[in-house]
């Protein structure tokens, strides 16, 4: 399968063979082989849940594989651990950076390996000199004496990478490195990566941006549903072929989600030229009763900001928000709730639930006034609300009094949704409602979203998984740089040539079309920056 350069006697930078990994009853990886050569940029691609992050966590020792062998720079890792991986030369650059903002660049680079004076005191001067040498060598323009807090996102990223390189990293893992970077920062990063490549560093590059992959990667490995689909040089993988491999045959059951015809009613939520502090920018959008509007786009495209502005968590500085035809002033979450808008937020653990509290307390958090009289909580009313939502949403919990943290991710999300269902809002804003949820619960939640339309609700839904958006939405807005770059009717994304019975292939075809629109929006974005 398109293997290159693996027959020669020299050892791979990374050779993972037959990696299998279970989590509880779920198999995340099925005998995956993954080889990376020294001096190449190797793209690792796949949809959410394809196993990308699992295989990377096996590589850097966070997860111990059930089966399979790991070889790094010719050395077999006998007992995998983060320390063993690091000692073997693997460095992972995280999306959330691991630098300490209150220390200088040099102090960060040499953290825990500080240069000492003869008296055993820390010698920042020497550290700065060594850092400067390193930066000069790699042609990076960062001042070693600057505080990390004062650096831009791109400089932070470079500092992070230099820190890894200074620890003799031979295998560099970059997970979505460009999400926080401006176009010029991405340029600088690429230049830097090419330099590292020339020095024989193996680079594993994870990104959703196909255009970047096409520019920087030498080879790519594509995973899907925990299996390796293909490893091939980029020259043999045009973008559409890559997308085809990534999307693959759908076995998610999402295509089976019934899309009963729901009458689209009057406008429920109207945004007129709404702008937030940075994002979103100048968004005009109408959501009708019985309609699901999806927001697509990459991380940082302004999808979440828009959701947060609607829900009153971020202020909107310009424009007008109307609910059921009446302008509303939304200055905080309470105003949004009063306007009957509910947000199911992105970070479930911190924003959605109070993990240590019971299922019943969480379910009644937004309706405390309704389940109480004269400020005294009526226990019976709480139990009624809780039992109703537990039954209605089929929340799997030992009892209503168990802490939410004892529930699975999917059931925790149902608690968040149930909390708002109890409040009976008109407008739901769902930010990545299925993130980190197993496949079975995913289609359950999408089905729930469709059911809400029948009750005459208006829904705004964000998801990074296009198949989910396509399964749930009536219209899809592609966001780019905080603006709507295009609004597509769900019907127009269907391929009329495919018969309606073939739901699976229709969904795949629609996904490719939507992916194409997103890439187009990105290209336009890149073009405006180049000018």
């Amino acid at each position, binding site marked *: 399968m398109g293997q290159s350069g693996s027959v020669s006697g020299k050892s791979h930078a990374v050779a993972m063979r037959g990696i299998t990994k279970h989590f509880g009853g779920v198999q995340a990886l099925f005998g995956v082989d993954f080889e990376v050569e020294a001096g190449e940029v190797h793209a690792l691609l796949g949809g959410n849940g394809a196993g990308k992050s699992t295989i990377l966590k096996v590589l850097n020792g966070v997860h111990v594989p059930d089966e399979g062998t790991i070889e790094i720079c010719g050395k077999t890792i006998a007992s995998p651990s983060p320390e063993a991986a690091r000692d073997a030369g693997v460095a992972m650059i995280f999306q959330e950076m691991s630098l300490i903002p209150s220390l200088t660049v040099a102090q960060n680079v040499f953290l825990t390996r500080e240069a000492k004076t003869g008296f055993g005191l820390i010698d920042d001067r020497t550290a700065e000199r060594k850092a400067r040498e390193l930066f000069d060598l790699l042609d990076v323009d960062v001042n070693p004496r600057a505080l990390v807090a004062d650096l831009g996102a791109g400089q932070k990223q470079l500092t992070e990478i230099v820190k890894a390189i200074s620890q003799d990293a031979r295998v560099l893992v970059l997970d979505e490195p460009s999400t926080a970077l401006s176009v010029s920062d991405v340029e600088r990063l690429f230049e830097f990566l090419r330099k590292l490549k020339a020095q024989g560093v193996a680079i594993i590059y994870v990104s959703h941006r196909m255009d970047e992959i096409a520019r920087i990667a030498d080879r790519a490995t594509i995973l899907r549903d925990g299996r390796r689909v293909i490893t091939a040089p980029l020259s043999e993988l045009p973008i559409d072929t890559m997308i085809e491999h990534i999307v693959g045959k759908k076995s998610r059951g999402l295509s089976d989600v019934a899309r009963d015809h729901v009458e689209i009613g009057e406008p429920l939520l109207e945004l007129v030229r709404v702008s937030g502090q940075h994002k979103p920018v100048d968004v005009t959008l109408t959501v009708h009763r019985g309609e699901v509007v999806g927001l697509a786009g990459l991380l940082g495209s302004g999808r979440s900001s828009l959701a947060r502005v609607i*829900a009153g*968590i971020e202020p909107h500085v310009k424009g007008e928000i109307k609910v059921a035809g009446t302008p509303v002033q939304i200055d905080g*979450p*309470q105003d949004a*709730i009063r306007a009957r808008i509910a*947000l199911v*937020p992105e*970070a479930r653990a*911190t*924003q*959605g*639930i*109070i*993990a*240590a*509290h019971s299922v019943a*307390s969480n379910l*009644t*958090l*937004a309706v*405390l*006034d309704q389940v*109480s009289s004269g*400020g*005294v*909580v009526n*226990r019976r009313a709480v139990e009624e609300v809780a039992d109703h939502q537990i039954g209605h949403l089929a929340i799997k919990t030992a009892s209503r009094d168990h802490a939410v943290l004892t529930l699975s991710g999917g059931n925790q999300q149902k608690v968040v949704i149930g*909390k708002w269902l109890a409040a009976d809002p008109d407008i739901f804003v769902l930010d990545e409602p299925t993130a980190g949820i197993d496949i079975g619960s995913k289609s359950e939640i999408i089905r729930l979203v469709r059911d809400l339309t029948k009750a005459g609700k208006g829904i705004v839904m964000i998801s990074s998984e296009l198949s989910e958006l396509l399964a749930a939405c009536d219209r899809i807005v592609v966001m780019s740089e905080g603006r709507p770059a295009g609004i597509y009717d769900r019907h127009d994304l269907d391929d009329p040539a495919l018969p309606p019975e073939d739901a699976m292939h229709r969904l795949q075809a629609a996904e490719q079309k939507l992916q194409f629109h997103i890439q187009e929006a990105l290209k336009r974005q890149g073009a405006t920056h180049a000018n």
Partner: protein
Amino acid sequence: MPTNDPTRALLTRLGLANWRQNIIYIGFVVIFLIFAVTLADKGFLNPNNLLNIVRQTAMIAVMAIAMTFVLSSGEIDLSVGAVAGLASVTVAMAIDAGGMIFGIVAGLATGLAVGVFNGLLTTHIGIPSFLTTLAMMGIAKGVAMWISDTAAVPIIEPAYSWLFGGGSIGIVPVLLLWMLGLGLIGHFVLKRTTFGRRVLATGGGETAARYSGIDTASVKFRVLIISSTAAALAGMLYAGRLQSGRFQLGEGDELSVIAAAVLGGTSLFGGYGTVVGTIVGALMIGLINNGLILMGLEFSQQLIARGGIIILAVALSQKRS
């Protein structure tokens, strides 16, 4: 977590499976029994001695009931001891100037004013309550010293002294009624009212609470006012019991108050609190103090023993993963 362990099943039946959570109640009984046996000949079980424990504990308990709310909401109030001292002085001076009712109003108003100040600084300016109330501790003490000229202010008003600390109905001290009455209200408010739920939700996950429409700033503002007002009330009880107001009253109480709440099972980091536990925690501190005195330990030894026992109790109550 071993679930099918037969020992565990037995413990569950006996209600001891969560013994760490209930350590305060177990500890209270154990220490009481130890003292009852070893100190029987020194009059430990004498009803008068037991009521004395209550009298000495009541002020700590009153402040600790309010502290339970503060800690549950994820904040802290270090100014309670100093505020008690300040209120004891203002109440004594006001009674002298305008009679009993004026005195009571002035005392409670002192607490309210401090609470508003603490609350505004914490929620509107965003200074952590740890710092706000640490600064307030010094300010309150300074004001009390200044207005009283560092001298005790006598209270010559028997009705006040009876109601706030000195009196008893039959053998039941009024202080016990204050403690139980406020404890009952506190327990009910924390467990059964929407305000209590909002306090726990704010401390359990501030962002999630805010996203759910809870005005978390207002919750924090209110718990700080409750705490200062309760501290002022404790100061008024001190003043009534000793028939005078002095700036030293309540000095250092903040540590006993926080220890009582934490011993009782309230989380220092918010999200969980129990008023019943807090009262038992306060009683346990009083019990230990009393027992150590009866044992004839010197003050220095008492301090060491008390510290050791509290560390042991809190260490045992920590969940280990």
